[in-house]
């Protein structure tokens, strides 16, 4: 299809500025701008600064998804984790609950750790979510930065590349629809196997989340998955060559261009000071915990402020500050989608709700305005 007529058609059906199908004004112009929220289910604290139970954290998460829908966010994503501080091991179940209470917002994983999962089950779960939600499901496949699912499900991290390569290939087959014949080393063979539930209107959107591996970028292009750049530290603009590599690889594989998205952490509050004051102590605490386990340097206030600034990866500030930064980086990266990973272990739930509301009602419209 001619991209310009495609866009026109999309413009015609657009009714609200926050609609996922609203026209893009950035580069490349053929994809609509999409703004999402991602969470890892970070455990929040109550008024006395005590951690909420896992169950309450999950119930709150459903409310976050419902609010996100109400305030005009395009996508709500949950990243698979298996730890006490991120108890979100069954994202699709939570997403289904959100689906039942919403009609517009798209719902997906951010990410599904495909290497330690079964591609057939991942397809079945998200195809089911797609059915429940009336065609609003997506998946982002990847590894994430935690490795807990590997020992839990009996996989060896040394096999990571082989597992991902083979399973991504099978997932692409499953997504295409129709009976699948497949043979590999990582699961039982499939012979002309009908995998259900069938999707109503073709494949649902699938992305590969990439943290810095050029081979993963090539792999996404090879299988025809869109590219989600996970930028959690350093200068976002340095990822521009990855977006370029992706489009060139698509061309080499004879595929049409596909959208590029950005996933980054942040926190929005009414003012820059309030956002930083709320976020910094919790961020420090979480990173300090992980720096002990993982053996890296604890951030200083100075390094934090650098990450919050224009050349860093954190989107912490007032709606205007965060909107300016998103607009600048989407432009620098040739990306048309931004997913804000909101929340940080220990923040209060009401701070998260305020973040979601400001993101939907102020940040997103302002970015659209800046990129118009």
């Amino acid at each position: 299809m001619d991209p310009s007529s495609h866009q026109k058609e999309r413009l015609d059906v657009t009714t609200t500025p926050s609609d996922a199908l609203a026209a893009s004004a950035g580069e490349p112009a053929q994809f609509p701008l999409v703004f999402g929220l991602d969470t890892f289910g970070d455990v929040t604290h109550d008024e006395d600064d005590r951690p909420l139970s896992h169950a309450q954290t999950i119930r709150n998460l459903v409310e976050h998804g419902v609010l996100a829908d109400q305030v005009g966010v395009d996508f709500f994503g949950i990243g698979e984790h298996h730890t006490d501080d991120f108890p979100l091991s069954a994202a699709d179940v939570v997403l289904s609950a959100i689906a039942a209470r919403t009609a517009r917002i798209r719902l997906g994983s951010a990410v599904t750790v495909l290497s330690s999962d079964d591609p057939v089950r991942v397809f079945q779960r998200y195809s089911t979510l797609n059915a429940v939600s009336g065609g609003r499901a997506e998946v982002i496949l990847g590894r994430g930065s935690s490795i807990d699912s590997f020992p839990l499900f009996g996989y060896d991290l040394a096999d990571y590349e082989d597992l991902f390569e083979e399973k991504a290939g099978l997932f692409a087959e499953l997504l295409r629809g129709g009976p699948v014949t497949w043979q590999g080393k990582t699961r039982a063979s499939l012979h002309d196997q009908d995998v259900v539930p069938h999707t109503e209107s073709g494949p649902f959107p699938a992305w590969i989340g990439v943290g810095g591996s050029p081979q993963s970028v090539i792999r996404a292009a090879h299988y025809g998955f869109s590219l989600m750049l996970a930028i959690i530290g350093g200068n976002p603009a340095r990822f521009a060559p990855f977006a370029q590599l992706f489009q060139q690889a698509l061309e080499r594989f004879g595929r049409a261009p596909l959208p590029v998205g950005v996933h980054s952490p942040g926190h929005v509050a009414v003012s820059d000071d309030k956002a930083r004051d709320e976020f910094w102590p919790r961020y420090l605490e979480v990173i300090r915990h992980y720096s002990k386990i993982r053996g890296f340097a604890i951030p200083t206030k100075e390094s934090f402020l650098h990450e919050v600034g224009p050349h860093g990866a954190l989107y912490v500030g007032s709606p205007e500050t965060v909107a300016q930064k998103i607009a600048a980086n989407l432009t620098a990266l040739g990306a048309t989608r931004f997913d804000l990973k909101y929340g940080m272990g220990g923040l209060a739930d009401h701070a998260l709700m305020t973040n979601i509301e400001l993101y939907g009602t102020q940040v997103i419209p302002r970015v659209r305005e800046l990129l118009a």
Partner: protein
Amino acid sequence: MLPLHQLEVLSSAPLPRIAVLGAGHVGPVIARVAMKAGYPVSIAASGDPEKIELIAQVLAPGAEPRWAADAVGEADIVVLAIPLHKFPTLDTSLVGGKLVVDAMNYWPPIDGVQEMFEDRRYGSSEIVAHRLARSTVVKTLNHIGYHELDEERRPAGAPRRRTLGVASDDPRGGAVVAELIEHIGYDAVRLGSLSAGRLLEPGGPVFGVPLRRAEFELAVRAVAA
């Protein structure tokens, strides 16, 4: 903006030829910064160079994709930037007689446990050197993020120039690699043995920390003392 172009070509004397083994997170960035410093660079992964042609073209323009044996054969310095869990299957004869930069890390919480590197009496580069008995091994480039290596480069004498440690049992090899580090855009601080290179490992005092020379020397000395 700092005048980074001053780093691009420092010398008209022929610089050593570099082979980067690995086209993942780290390899293309090292190839790129070495190219920018004027070194002739080739890059190789485990298989056909055609498979990494596009990666080299976009992420390390000018670096030549080669078969590993061809790249190493002509190189004066070989940079090992492969996943550490692939190291036990690396053909040691490939790099025999070569000056080898070990840019790899043993980082169990990120990459999983590996039996070969579990003997904590030795640093990972000592274990690498033990297996590469016919090579000269130098440890460096492992303790700066691959996402920082390009943009943190500064000309010599710049006030915020960052420091990288260079550890080796071989003074001559260490000197050649320290010069490479200086040319790329970092101060090099020599550590007198591969064993001392443990200070550069994950959990050590300089891992992932941007330090100027004096701060670096202080941090390393404080732990070594």
